[in-house]
Every structure is written in structure tokens, then in C-alpha cells.
């Protein structure tokens, strides 16, 4: 479940928990258990007073923990923005690196503003099992803490907002080195202000999909595949980079200019993912939450590690040498795969889910090339491919889900995002224009569009050289 206005579920949970744990604990500590005789009125009063004070405090502590979890985990997800920038900036050629930087910082900024203006309300307010929330401008944080909300509403907004930005970042990677800046910026605004929140309302806003029994803990489908579908549509409409595919069918690799930067980006994403999945527990105010988040951290880490190892072994076996960029994709593949259900799997299953993700990505990258879909950073295999895989793998550990409802979620959201993306991309194509000219592409977007170079002193590398 992922919803903003949870009326004290945490406090409820923890009360339940304490009630169960109490007798055992009391004995542990050598304290006398509660007497069995009927208490007098005076006793009841005193006890009630104490209980009321304690409960109020319990709620306050829970409120703090929950809000703090949203904020810190949200900050980690914000940091993923830097991760995407570094990953993508390292995998493009140096003549397009500055543009990639600009797109990523813009995506993060525009996503936040759009989600503030319309997105949040559209996604979370009055969805009521339907298809869409409220088209009201401006999220309002309220005038002071209300313990009944269980956490600060703004902390929740912050956490949901950084997720939106993630979806936008995915698009910039696939379409790098040819998509114009302003088209990207407008698409991002629509994606983060409308497309993402509407499909998000279906599930996390407790819309129809949620009621149908779909489950996506931290967004394999709602975040990653959304970005992936939008990127896929864009890649098909934009076409490949000049020179990527020869007429005779050959695929000409275009190596990324700065692999250590791409590696840094992967590490950043990995770190940020603890926030992405861990924070999606949506609470920290009870031992149960702390216990759950711990398992989420461990599973997230093991899935990523398994993705790395799987990609290493796969590339060694298939190609006779390990491919660093595939290994980086493997880490992200593991992370995306576990995102739909990072809590319930045993660690061993988490390793399995991540490893399958790593294998998938190694297989899918050349497959896309065969389809002549030019995905500069491998975002489609990672975020779309493994996003689907992770979502379909939920029933392996979560008995409340079925393969069919999972498929329903994947398909309905996919169809919606594909349809919207086609409309928006085409609208942009026939107005602002999607793709830079051939000459601009030769020179690179940095010089042609931004009038500067990312690394003006480091040689102006030609791919052939």
C-alpha cells in the first residue's frame, strides 16, 4: 500500500504488536504481570491517564520516525538524480555530455515543480478506486502537525516527488545524443505533471488497479516501466543515432566517453535505491516497520549484487570477456527487478530475482539493437524489461497477488503510457521538432545547442579514433 492519508495505521500496528509482546516482555524483565482482580475506579483513572499520555507520545514518536524516514529516504532518491546524470553522461560521447547534464538537472527540477502544481493532487486526492484524482492546483502542506495523519504531509509529498523525477530521468538516457532540449523539457513536464500521476492514482492513489489486487511495492511498474515505455516510444519515433546501424545490418557500437563517471552513477543509484525501496515502506514508526525496512535494504542489496555477478558471468560466457557497461546495467537490472517486492522475498529469492534481471539485460541489449531501437544507455532493458520482470515476480513471494492481476497492471499501465507518449511525442515532433539536424548531430548537441563543450581541453574525440 502506498497512500498519503493513512489514519494512524502505524500506531495501530504498533499497539497491536505491543499488546501481543507485553506479557512475554514483562516476564523477561522480572516484572509482575497485571493482576487479575477487577481494578478500582481510581486505578482505572490513573491507568487511563498514563495510557493516554503514553499513547499520545507513542503517536508523536511514530510521527517523527515516519516523517524522518520520508525525508532521509527521499533525499537518497533525490541523489539518484545525480546518479542518472553521471551514468548517462558517462555513456554518451563527449560532444553530447553537457546536454545530458542539462537534461538531467532540468528533469529533476521540472518534475518537482509539476508535481507540486498538479501532480500530487491528481495522484492522491480523492481517487476513490477510480481512474484519476483531483485536478487542483498547488499542493498545500497545512498549518501545523496533526498527529492523526501519522506523518508530516509535506514529508510524504517530498518522497513521492522524488519518485516522479526518477521516471523522467529514464527517458533522457535512451534518447540521448539526438533529442532536442526543449522537446525533452516539455515532454518531462507532461510526463511528470499528468501521465505519471494519473497512472500512479490507479495504484498508489488507491484507484481501480489497487482495488483489483495489483501490487507494486516501490514502483517496478509505476516508476520504472513508465519511464521505460515513454523512452521506448520516443526511441522508435526519433530513430537511431547517425551511424549506429549500417545499411548492411551491422551494429556499430558507439562507446561512452567516460566509463568511470558511468560507474559512479551506478554506485549513486545503488545507494539511492535504499531510499527508493526502504522509504517505500512508508513508515518507520514501529518495530515492525524497522524490521521490514531492514529486510528491504538487505534484499535490495543482494538483488543488485546478484545482477552484477550474473552480468559478469553472462558476458564472460557469451562474449569471452566481461563487459563493464553491461555489468553496470546488471546492477541496475537487479535493483529494478526487486523493486516491485523488496520486502517479502527471502534473501535467497532476492538473489534469484536480481540474477534473472542481470541475465535479462545482457540478452535484451543486443535484441534491441537487432530491432534497430537505439537506446543509448540501456534504459529500456533495465527499467522496462526488468520492471516487467520484477512485477511479474511478485507472486513468487507475495501470496496476496496473482500472476494475472500483476499482468493486468503491467499491461494497463503500459498501454496508457504508450498511448499518451505517442500523442505527446508526435505533437512535439510536428511543433517544436524532436530531433536535431544531421549537422548538429555531427557536431554534437553541446556545441550546436549549448555553444560550449563539456570537456574543452580533453581532445575532441572522434568515435573512430
Amino acid at each position: 500500500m502506498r497512500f498519503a492519508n493513512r489514519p494512524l495505521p502505524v500506531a495501530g500496528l504498533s499497539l497491536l504488536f505491543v499488546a501481543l509482546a507485553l506479557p512475554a516482555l514483562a516476564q523477561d524483565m522480572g516484572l509482575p504481570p497485571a493482576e487479575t482482580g477487577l481494578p478500582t475506579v481510581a486505578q482505572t483513572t490513573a491507568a487511563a491517564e498514563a495510557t493516554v499520555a503514553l499513547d499520545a507520545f507513542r503517536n508523536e514518536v511514530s510521527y517523527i520516525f515516519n516523517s524522518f524516514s520520508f525525508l532521509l529516504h527521499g533525499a537518497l532518491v533525490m541523489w539518484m538524480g545525480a546518479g542518472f546524470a553521471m551514468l548517462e553522461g558517462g555513456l554518451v560521447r563527449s560532444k553530447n555530455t553537457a546536454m545530458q547534464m542539462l537534461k538531467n538537472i532540468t528533469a529533476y527540477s521540472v518534475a518537482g515543480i509539476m508535481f507540486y502544481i498538479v501532480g500530487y493532487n491528481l495522484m492522491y486526492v480523492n481517487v476513490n478506486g477510480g481512474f484519476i484524482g483531483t485536478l487542483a492546483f498547488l499542493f498545500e502542506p497545512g498549518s501545523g502537525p496533526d498527529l492523526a495523519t501519522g506523518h508530516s504531509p509535506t514529508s510524504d509529498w517530498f518522497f513521492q516527488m522524488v519518485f516522479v523525477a526518477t521516471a523522467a530521468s529514464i527517458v533522457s538516457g535512451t534518447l540521448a545524443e539526438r533529442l532536442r532540449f526543449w522537446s525533452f523539457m516539455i515532454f518531462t513536464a507532461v510526463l511528470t505533471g499528468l501521465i505519471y500521476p494519473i497512472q500512479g492514482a490507479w495504484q498508489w492513489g488507491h484507484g481501480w488497479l489497487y482495488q483489483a489486487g495489483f501490487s507494486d511495492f516501490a514502483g517496478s511498474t509505476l516508476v520504472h516501466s513508465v519511464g521505460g515505455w515513454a523512452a521506448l516510444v520516443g526511441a522508435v519515433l526519433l530513430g537511431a543515432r547517425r551511424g549506429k546501424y549500417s545499411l548492411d545490418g551491422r551494429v556499430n557500437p558507439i562507446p561512452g566517453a567516460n566509463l568511470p563517471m558511468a560507474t559512479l552513477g551506478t554506485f549513486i543509484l545503488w545507494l539511492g535505491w535504499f531510499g527508493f525501496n526502504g522509504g517505500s515502506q512508508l513508515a518507520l514508526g514501529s518495530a515492525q516497520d524497522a524490521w521490514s525496512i531492514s529486510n528491504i535494504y538487505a534484499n535490495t542489496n543482494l538483488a543488485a549484487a546478484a545482477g552484477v555477478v550474473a552480468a559478469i558471468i553472462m558476458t564472460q560466457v557469451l562474449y569471452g570477456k566481461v563487459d563493464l557497461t553491461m555489468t553496470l546495467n546488471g546492477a541496475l537490472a537487479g535493483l529494478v527487478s526487486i523493486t516491485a517486492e523488496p520486502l517479502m522475498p527471502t534473501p535467497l529469492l532476492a538473489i534469484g530475482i536480481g540474477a534473472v534481471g542481470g541475465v535479462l539485460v545482457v540478452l535484451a541489449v543486443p535484441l534491441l539493437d537487432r530491432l534497430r531501437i537505439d537506446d543509448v544507455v540501456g534504459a529500456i532493458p533495465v527499467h522496462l524489461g526488468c520492471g516487467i520482470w520484477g512485477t511479474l515476480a511478485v507472486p513468487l513471494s507475495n501470496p496476496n497477488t496473482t500472476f494475472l492481476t500483476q499482468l493486468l497492471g503491467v499491461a494497463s499501465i503500459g498501454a496508457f503510457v504508450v498511448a499518451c507518449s505517442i500523442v505527446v511525442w508526435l505533437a512535439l515532433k510536428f511543433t517544436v521538432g524532436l530531433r536535431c539536424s544531421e549537422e548538429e548531430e555531427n557536431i554534437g548537441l553541446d556545441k550546436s545547442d549549448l555553444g560550449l563543450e563539456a570537456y574543452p581541453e580533453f581532445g575532441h574525440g572522434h568515435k573512430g579514433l
Partner: protein
Amino acid sequence: MAIIKPFKLDEVREALGQLGIQGLTVSEVKGFGRQKGQTEIYRGAEYQVNFLPKVKLEIAVRDDLVDRAMEAISAAACTDKIGDGKIFVYGLEHAVRIRTGETGNDAL
């Protein structure tokens, strides 16, 4: 020696290959010529980009191949736009292949 636009390198190399020329040396250079760089603005200040990235090819060829090589390069590197580059030819006195010690045309 030829100065060409960087993205024409592969085509030129293939054109030369078809003449049987299988050795050449390439370096990244910056060129200054009639093709002026654009005026750019960086942090609010205008500046002129004077030097444009070019690729320099150095190719030692047998005398009888010089003309055909020049034609091949010209044909492959030409975009009919300013800045396409130039070919300069100068005489070589000796050539040695370090590995074998072969000299003259055998070394090319």
C-alpha cells in the same frame, strides 16, 4: 597529408583502402581557416570560436599512387561546404619499416 572533417574519417579510410593503401596515421588537430567558428556566449560573454576540430591524415604512398590517392580523398571528404579541408603533398626521401628494416616503397 590531408586535413579533413572528423566525421569523414571512416569514408576516407575506406576510399584509400580500395586503392590498396593500407597504412596511414591519424591525429586530432584544430583548424583555422575560412570556415569560421560561430560566435558563442559563455556565461554572458561573447567569444569567437576560432579553431575547429579536424582530423589530419598522414599517408605515405608510392609516387604512382599520389594522384589517385588525392582524388580518392577529395571525393570521400567533400561535403561541398566550407571547411572541408585540404590536401598537401610533399616529397619523402626515405621510408623504413622498423620491424623488417625494409626501405623505400616496400616500407609503405
